[in-house]
């Protein structure tokens, strides 16, 4: 049994069809519980009620970066091994990643206005996140602009490699540059409590919910792309006959 077996579209459709209901159920449960639990947490002594925005902002930002990293891995698999399902999975992830990035940018701006006194600052993390969002839009546009699917997968794969620099910068910008407004990581594996358990546990549930939601959406969208590709191939064959 090898992971490459799932590069076969029929096997991918069959396997994803089995796990998808469970992932959808988990995504719905964890996202709703995480956000409702987060919304019901007490006010922070400094941030007041705006602390509730963290349960949207942090999971969305996390998935925004990780979605691009997933696209990078899938694109590399396509460029190296030429498995069509991996190229379609990368294509499927882009709109979901773009939405996650947009949520992170908007919730960050909404939180920043009362806390920092500004909606926007050309801070290293904010700027690299904005560039990442533009990369998402460019990636989606490039897929739509090129008619030949293999050429589109090649070029978007290369774009994904370049964009990974900004995905990486978005994650580590606060460590590279200290002059920004954005604070360091709220959660860390390093010792020492950075966030009270009152906020930490609902945040974990929300993060799990956003991850499962991303996974469910990418699986559904990949299945859609496989079906579209199959229909296009059948119609092209019919046209040639």
């Amino acid at each position, binding site marked *: 049994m090898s992971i490459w077996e799932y590069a076969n579209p029929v096997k991918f459709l069959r396997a994803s069809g089995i796990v998808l209901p469970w992932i959808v159920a988990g995504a719905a449960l964890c996202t709703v519980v995480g956000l409702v639990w987060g*919304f019901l947490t007490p006010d922070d002594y400094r941030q007041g009620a705006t602390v509730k925005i963290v349960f949207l902002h942090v999971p969305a930002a996390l998935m925004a970066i990780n979605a691009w990293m997933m696209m990078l891995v899938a694109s590399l698999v396509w460029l190296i091994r030429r498995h069509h399902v991996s190229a379609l999975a990368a294509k499927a992830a882009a709109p*979901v990643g773009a*939405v996650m990035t947009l*949520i992170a940018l908007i919730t960050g701006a909404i*939180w920043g206005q*009362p806390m920092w006194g500004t909606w926007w600052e050309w801070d290293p993390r904010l700027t690299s996140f904005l560039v990442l969002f533009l990369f998402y839009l460019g990636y989606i546009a490039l897929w739509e602009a090129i008619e030949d699917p293999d050429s589109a997968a090649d070029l978007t794969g290369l774009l994904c490699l370049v964009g990974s620099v900004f995905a990486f910068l978005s994650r580590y910008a606060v460590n590279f540059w200290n002059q920004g407004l954005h604070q360091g990581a709220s959660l860390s594996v390093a010792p020492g409590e950075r966030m009270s358990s009152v906020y930490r546990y609902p945040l974990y549930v929300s993060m799990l919910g956003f991850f499962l939601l991303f996974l469910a959406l990418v699986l559904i969208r990949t*299945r859609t792309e496989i*079906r579209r590709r*199959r229909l296009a191939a059948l119609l092209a064959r019919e046209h040639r006959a």
Partner: protein
Amino acid sequence: MIELGKYATTVLSAYGISLVLLVAIVLQTVRANARARRALEEYDNRG
């Protein structure tokens, strides 16, 4: 009732906009999948 105080607009707008975006991507994904499945089934049924 949850008291959001002076940050009520801030918190509610963050949740509102985020939920609209999440629901939009979920609906778009489900509809596109249903369309693709139907189109392939119609082709198969055509024989």
